[in-house]
């Protein structure tokens, strides 16, 4: 945990690259973020496979049979939430000025999930 947060939004209006089509700008951001994450995971897996193969291990069967315990499920869901935060960053920034407070709950609908 750090005790400070660095800014993640560059001051200044974001240029619109697709005039009249703001959704296209958003989609470009999402797709490219996704591609970045995919490349990171792909490379990590490649590294793991190369290291284990060099030590004479075939992980495939163990991976397919793996049952995550609750602690692992929590860690994975936390990662997915952080990933979705990054993936959908622009949407979070867009709604922020209209929210009374960043951590305000319940939401405007008060509906269950």
């Amino acid at each position, binding site marked *: 945990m750090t005790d400070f947060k660095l800014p993640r939004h560059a001051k200044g209006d974001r240029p619109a690259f697709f005039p009249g089509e703001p959704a296209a700008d958003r989609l470009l951001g999402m797709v490219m973020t996704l591609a970045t994450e995919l490349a990171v995971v792909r490379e990590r897996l490649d590294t793991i496979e190369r290291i284990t193969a060099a030590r004479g291990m075939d992980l495939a069967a163990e991976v397919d049979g793996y049952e995550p315990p*609750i*602690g692992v499920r929590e860690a994975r869901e936390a990662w*997915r939430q952080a990933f979705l935060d990054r993936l959908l960053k622009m949407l979070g920034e867009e709604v922020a000025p*209209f929210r009374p407070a960043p951590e305000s709950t319940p939401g*405007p*609908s*008060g*509906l*269950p999930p």
Partner: protein
Amino acid sequence: MALNTNHQDFHPLLPRGTHDERARQEFVKSLHERASGLSRAEAGWIYKGRVVPAFQARYGRAPATREEARIALECDPFWQTVVGLRRTAQELLWSSVIDTVEREGPALIASAREHAGGPGSLRLSPALPIPDYLTGVDFHAMPGSYHGEFATDDVCAGALFERGTFLYTHGYIGPMSENLGRGMVDFVRRKHPDWQPRRILDMGCGIGSCTLPWVDAFPGAEIHGIDVAAPGLRYGHARANLLGKAVQFSQQNAEHTDFPAGHFDLVVSHILLHETSREAIANIFRESFRLLAPGGRMVHADLPDIRFLPDLFQQVSVDQDHYDNNEPLWAGYYDLDLKGLLQAAGFPSETIALESAGMVLSLPPSSASPDRSRTVTSRFGYGVISAQRPIQK
């Protein structure tokens, strides 16, 4: 906010998947939950802060109806993005499960055959016509719908439904998809604490996941489940057997069944009505009346009446499945004269109640409390229609 670590109980009929398929399904569940939060809740801030002011600037007043609010929202790029995202997540969800079901299908069919014997029974009627409201569109964008059959003794649609709806409800439906049935059992018990129905019919039972809580609640009762779709019935029959629960399944249309008049003390359904048609709902009410013994009751759980919600955005957000999730009757459902239809079916006015019931939701387990059986009941949930056949005559 608590992490959603809800996960399903695997049993021999549930598609298991490879590591990567399971990982894809877990991710899509999180993505779908996020997209639902953005479109059904977060977009409310956009509506209040940006959509209403824009509407006011143009027309000199705020949107006055659900329809006006929805049309105003549809012009907003945030709304366009988040409802598009939810639809995309819904499509990814089904395809992530179809990958598994397609590959494991032959093994699932074999497993269902192995569990064909057991405490329950199954009566199929291959000649039964599939109603137009099911053949016209695949409800909630589930490819192949309930009745699609692609192999001999096919159970794939049942397997796809069980895994897919677990992800679709973000696991709040319970490890065995039992929570909606449990909620309706609770509802009936609260209203009639000492009542012991002897024969219960679940209409449109699908894979019977909502039927089984009635077996547990009334162990002395004979429990029947009917549905028009054979794959779910085969799957549900084998599933009930392997769980050791006695349900008599038969392939029938709830509009006109072959049970004798007065055969049941209780007729129930769980979110069946809005996936039929206006005409079918009237027929189902008439058939419910015919099937009930004197003093018998019907309880149908379906969409809540959103018209009482004070905030137009809330109404639009509940309504949105009509527009982005292949639900042709959803938006019109609230405007049906349900009470009038029930009276026309024969139910006396004073026995008819239109109430709301909270949803029973599974609490995600955590390292600190790994118990997966904990639930909470939501404030807002289903609309429950109940009525009683008079004891006299």
